[in-house]
């Protein structure tokens, strides 16, 4: 009998089983263990259908393009500005205006398509999507539905799985298409006076809609995919990817079905402000749909909003059947032609040309490639590379430190991730704003490597360096007398004195109880104010006592 939970990722299996069956033992580790099989059959006997549900999640991501001007008009793109100040006649949908396509937006879309391994359509067409809403004054949105600019790509991301979430599993989600479209304006609802205030500054800004296939099965996968997409877009420079500011908007289409059965009715979840809330919203929605279906109800094809305070999704409006957008080709825009080196002919104006091969050469190093390179070059763990690449500028800091010191990369990464990053986060600073320069840290680590200071002393020096008073590591060590005593004879003298001061411990050691040696080492440390290297002290004491 096939295990009913096999279709889900390991973490989902654990989550669903632990949530839905309180009487069962919690399944740990791989579902193929005998304990899991027993638990699964027990579940099959009790609430058999509960463990068979599989969540299906597809994402629609709208990424606001980072350009100076809007997609079809020449108004500025700026986050905050006086209301309706950045609006041209086309954005206000005044009659007699025509759209003119922005070349930079096309290049950005092609670059994103190449980074996501998509096929770029050399001829793509624009359509009108009609619907009535106050923030869309013209009544339609120019988008690309029939023939978008890029199709059939994939996004590779990694997910923390396992008991302690320390094992990285690589995953892939297919990208159905990437299309260029216009943003709508912003509406502020004033319920007190039952009116809506409309601000068209945002209307007409170029958006890339990235439609993903429903390959994901739970909130964690979706959150990891979105984080990876954010990193890629930020690396390319096509989008800032800030979900809280609305530059990256994610809508999740969630449904559940039983293995082998057709997909269930899906509900769309909107109003999500961060990857973490995305995971919570999707998990809540999957659980809600399972509960409804378990009780014999039906899922409505509706749009739900996520309320982050309660962690629940609330029905926004009833989609009366499927919304019919009456797509029609945009008559004012001929098809968009994109060239590559083979199809480019000399009689085309070079200023008008978007060349795929040229843009491919301009692609920067993507996060995934960067991580692989770090692992290969420095031998650090993959999990650490994730933290490194996530933080803007941290990789460069790390590499600069490594250039200037001969310390082991693994030790350096420990300092960077545990000490440096922790202090940055505590003080809410970015890497560029750090008071410690890479060379200062490199100097400190060199001192540590060469044995001039102990690691606890190094941490004290680090905290001093953070104060940013301009002193170097060497100066701090001298001032605070943190350097290890290098003089062997002095150490031997101190050890001798400690041995003479503790005769009872000596007799115990001579009887064979070597654990008391640690107490003696502690005494030596106290006498030297922590300036003795523990290994050297142990060596001297052992030599003296044996």
């Amino acid at each position: 009998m096939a295990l009913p939970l096999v279709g889900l990722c390991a973490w989902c299996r654990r989550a669903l089983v632990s949530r839905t069956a309180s009487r069962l033992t919690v399944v740990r580790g791989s579902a193929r263990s005998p304990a899991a099989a027993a638990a699964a059959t027990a579940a099959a006997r009790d609430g058999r259908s509960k463990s068979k549900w599989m969540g299906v999640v597809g994402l629609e991501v709208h990424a606001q393009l980072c350009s100076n001007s809007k997609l079809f008009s020449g108004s500025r793109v700026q986050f905050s500005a006086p209301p309706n100040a950045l609006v041209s006649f086309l954005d206000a949908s005044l009659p007699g205006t025509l759209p003119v396509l922005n070349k930079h937006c096309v290049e950005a879309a092609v670059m994103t398509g190449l980074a996501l391994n998509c096929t770029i359509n050399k001829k793509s067409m624009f359509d009108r999507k009609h619907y009535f809403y106050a923030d869309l004054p013209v009544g339609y949105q120019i988008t690309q539905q029939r023939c978008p600019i890029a199709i059939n790509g994939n996004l590779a991301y990694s997910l923390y799985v396992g008991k302690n979430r320390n094992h990285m599993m690589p995953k892939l989600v297919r990208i159905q298409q990437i299309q260029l479209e216009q943003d709508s304006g912003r509406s502020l609802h004033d319920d007190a006076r039952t009116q809506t205030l409309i601000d068209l500054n945002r209307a007409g800004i170029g958006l890339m809609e990235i439609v993903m296939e429903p390959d994901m099965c739970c909130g964690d996968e979706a959150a990891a995919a979105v984080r990876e997409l954010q990193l890629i877009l930020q690396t390319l420079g096509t989008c800032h990817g800030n979900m809280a500011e609305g530059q990256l908007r994610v809508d999740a289409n969630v449904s559940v079905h039983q293995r082998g059965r057709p997909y269930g009715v899906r509900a769309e979840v909107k109003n999500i402000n961060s990857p973490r809330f995305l995971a919570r919203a999707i998990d809540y929605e999957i659980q809600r749909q399972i509960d409804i279906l378990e009780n014999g109800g039906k899922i409505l094809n509706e749009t739900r909003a996520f309320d982050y305070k309660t962690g629940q999704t609330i029905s926004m409006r009833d989609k009366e059947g499927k919304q019919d957008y009456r797509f029609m080709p945009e008559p004012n825009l001929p098809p968009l032609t994109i060239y590559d080196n083979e199809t480019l002919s000399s009689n085309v104006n070079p200023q008008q040309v978007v060349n795929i091969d040229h843009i491919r050469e301009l692609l920067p190093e993507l996060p995934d490639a960067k991580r692989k390179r770090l692992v290969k070059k420095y031998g650090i763990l993959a999990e650490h590379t994730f933290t490194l690449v996530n933080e803007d500028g941290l990789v460069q800091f790390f590499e600069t430190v490594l250039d200037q010191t001969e310390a082991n990369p693994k030790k350096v990464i420990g300092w960077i991730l545990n000490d440096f990053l922790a202090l940055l986060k505590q003080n809410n600073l970015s890497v560029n704003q750090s008071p410690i320069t890479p060379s200062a840290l490199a100097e400190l680590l060199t001192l540590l490597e060469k044995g001039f200071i102990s690691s606890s002393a190094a941490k004290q020096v680090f905290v001093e360096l953070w104060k940013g008073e301009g002193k170097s590591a060497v100066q701090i060590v001298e001032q605070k007398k943190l350097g290890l005593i290098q003089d062997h004879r002095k150490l031997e003298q101190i050890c001798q004195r400690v041995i003479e001061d503790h005769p009872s411990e000596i007799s115990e050691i001579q009887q064979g109880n070597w654990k008391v040696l640690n107490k003696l080492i502690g005494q030596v440390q106290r006498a030297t104010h922590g300036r003795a290297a523990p290994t050297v002290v142990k060596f001297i004491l052992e030599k003296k006592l044996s």
Partner: protein
Amino acid sequence: MSVIITARIQGPSCSLSPRPQPLEPGSCLIPLGPGTMWSFTRRAALWVPLPRRLSPSPRPRNARTAVCGRPPGPSSGRPEGAGPAPAWSKVPQSPSWQPVEVCEFPEVTMEMIDHLERLALVDFRNQEGIERLADAIQFANQLHAVDTEGVEPMDSVLEDRPLYLREDTVTEGYCAEAILSNAKQVVEEYFIAPPGNIPLPKKEERDSFLQHSNR
């Protein structure tokens, strides 16, 4: 000073090309008789051979209409009301279209009307409007008689032209006052709109709704 040319009125056997009479200095030219408005354009028209259909219908030539007769030209020898069109005429002289066989009358249901009214915010008002819609659909359905096998659909007459790509510079905007000047209601530089997505009334309420609307 506009010049009005007169032509001497002659008898029925007049020559067909009137010539302007030499003017005596100081004399003015007066249109002769009621209804004979002579003007430069009329004179020019007299020199243009008229197609048969547009030419003045043959009527008894009297003193007044003598010079309205047919001017000389390549068609001067043609008898009235006969023969193929002259070589220069692009207008077909007889109907050249065949009627398309009438398709069955399209079925326009109330659900479809409801749906369309919600989507496009139009109002068909009454049965006559719906019948007109059905007529229009039937008229357009005649296009199905054309064989489009193997022909790529055209979405824009501009399909051969390259799409112009604009450089990414800021050239417009900062005209909030002009943008807001046409709006009926404005609050602190925001447009005012009614609260969003008020659902349309259901069909039963709609008839009474229409009666009270002031359209």
